[in-house]
């Protein structure tokens, strides 16, 4: 981590910094999706809602002359409150119905922000977007450090959750919710807890991304592409494994890097990869690695 942090100071090329930045943002998002889908069985398609809300919170803060650091903190609070609010209707749904319900939320928000101009009528571009103000005195290096903080932080958060009582309870719910409930686990509260944590981290990652981007529009902020990226990274790397999102995110960012000039083809490859991996190795690259002999002997070496 310290090594990653000093990279911009020793003068790494600009696009390398950009790719590590993207890696960190995507990693945080993928980790949170993995937490929901891989460990709680919640197929959440509404993570974009938190990202977009974070972007708009930043807009409101910077346009009113408030410090951006406060804006970042507040975007997490807004996302958490919103997560609690939408959990009221959404958590009544299960499985596939939850997925449908959650898919509608970002679309509804997109329309809300098309209609509601939170900071006046001075918009940029056709999509009713806003520029973020007051970013001049924040350098790319600072934003990069924030991204590393959130990206690496999300790994520690996952570890913390999974080794805590919350993680045990979630695993029990995922495996058999009736049995979990009859052993005294409050399903609603545990799921809500995971949902709110994922909302907070996703919002932080979103806020940092929009600090870098400097511009937010309803269609971009609440775009399905975000959800796609999370699913791709998690599934390719290995769903329900801690290391999976890391490996998956590396692959996604690497594909971005190699096929930067052919964005369309890169996405076709990613989609095909997603289908192939799901069919051939449903546990992803990590799940596949775990079964192979070298990895197991490596583990044995570590635990000896």
């Amino acid at each position, binding site marked *: 981590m310290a090594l990653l942090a000093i990279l911009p100071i020793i003068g790494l090329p600009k696009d390398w910094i950009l790719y590590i930045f993207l890696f960190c943002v995507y990693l945080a998002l993928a980790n949170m999706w993995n937490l929901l*889908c891989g460990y709680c069985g919640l*197929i959440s398609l509404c993570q974009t809602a938190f990202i977009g809300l974070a972007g708009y919170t930043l807009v409101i803060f910077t346009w009113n002359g408030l410090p951006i650091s406060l804006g970042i903190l507040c975007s997490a609070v807004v996302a958490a409150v919103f997560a609690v609010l939408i959990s*009221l*209707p*959404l958590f*009544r*749904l299960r*499985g*596939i*119905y939850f*997925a*449908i*319900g959650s*898919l*509608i*939320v970002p*679309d*509804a928000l997109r*329309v*809300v922000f*098309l*209609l509601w101009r939170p900071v006046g009528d001075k918009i940029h571009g056709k999509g009713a977007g806003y520029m973020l103000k007051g970013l001049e005195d924040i350098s790319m290096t600072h934003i990069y450090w924030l991204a590393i903080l959130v990206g690496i932080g999300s790994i520690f958060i996952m570890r913390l959750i999974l080794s805590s009582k919350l993680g045990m309870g979630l695993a029990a719910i995922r495996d058999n919710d009736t049995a979990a409930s009859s052993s005294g686990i409050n399903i609603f509260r545990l799921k809500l807890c995971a949902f709110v944590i994922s909302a907070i981290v996703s919002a932080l990652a979103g806020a940092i991304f929009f600090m870098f981007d400097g511009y937010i529009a309803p269609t971009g902020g609440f775009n*399905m592409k975000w959800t*796609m990226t999370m*699913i*791709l990274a998690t*599934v390719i790397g290995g*769903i329900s494994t801690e290391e999976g999102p890391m490996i998956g995110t590396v692959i996604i960012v690497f594909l971005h890097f190699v096929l930067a000039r052919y964005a*369309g*083809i890169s*996405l*076709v490859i*990613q*989609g*095909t990869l*997603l*289908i192939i991996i*799901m*069919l051939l190795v*449903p546990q992803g690259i990590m799940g596949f690695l775990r079964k192979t002999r070298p990895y197991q002997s490596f583990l044995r070496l570590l635990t000896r």
Partner: protein
Amino acid sequence: MDEFIASLGSPLIMGILLGGLYAVIALGLSLVFGVMRLLNVAHGDLVIFGSYFAYLVITFLGIDPILSLVLGIPFLFLIGFAIQKFLMARAFKLSMEAPLIIAFGISLVLENVYQIMFSPMSRGISTSYSMESFVLGRIYIPIVYVLNFIAALLVMVSLHAFLKRTYLGQAIIAASQDAVAAQLKGINTARIFAMTFGIAGATAAVAGVFLGLTFPFTPISGISFLIVAFGVVILGGLGSVLGTFMGGMILGLAQTLGAHFFGSAAQMLILDIMVLVILAVRPQGLFGR
């Protein structure tokens, strides 16, 4: 007061006619969901596939878009059949979310193939009659909307008859009610599922042509029509043809009336909130069992 009622006439009629189109878009989604419990997020992209296919056929062969369905329906049937047979059938054995994630993959691939082939530009299918309309009292009705509605009625009635009267249709219904029991009775459920996905593809072909006649479409339009289709399915209940038709009507009316009272920007929001409320209060849909 009379003025108020008179001004309502246009959105009411347009809403009902538009509802027909929405019902056809949602039909394939509802069928696949009802029979296989699969949320096919690629359905919107299959509908757009139908639109682009018709677009290609008329630019190269120069025939009427509705006639192009002679090619489009079997072609999309085969694609649907293949998706189920080669991809989904294996995914169903894995886990609950595997088919959903594969559908996501298909959607991602299709969207970007359209982007590469047809550029992100917005396109429409235009014919000699696509701009014409006729007058009913004081209301102008575009001919395309009437065609939409007639096509919707035809598709609904024939699908209903197919499900009720033929052996294959009855087998599909049996498989949707209880796949294991159907299998024990000697029904080849793997084949039935592939046929169902094929039929969903065929309805997507019809929906695609009429969608292209009514609205302009882009490579990423699939997602917005997918949400419309979800709305119809949630309102109407799963797997019921009549419910889907009613759901389409309600959604069409909600959209045109919403636009009439609150402006055209708010119409989608009204739709989304309606769907969320119904999901929370009555997840099996207004007409579901």
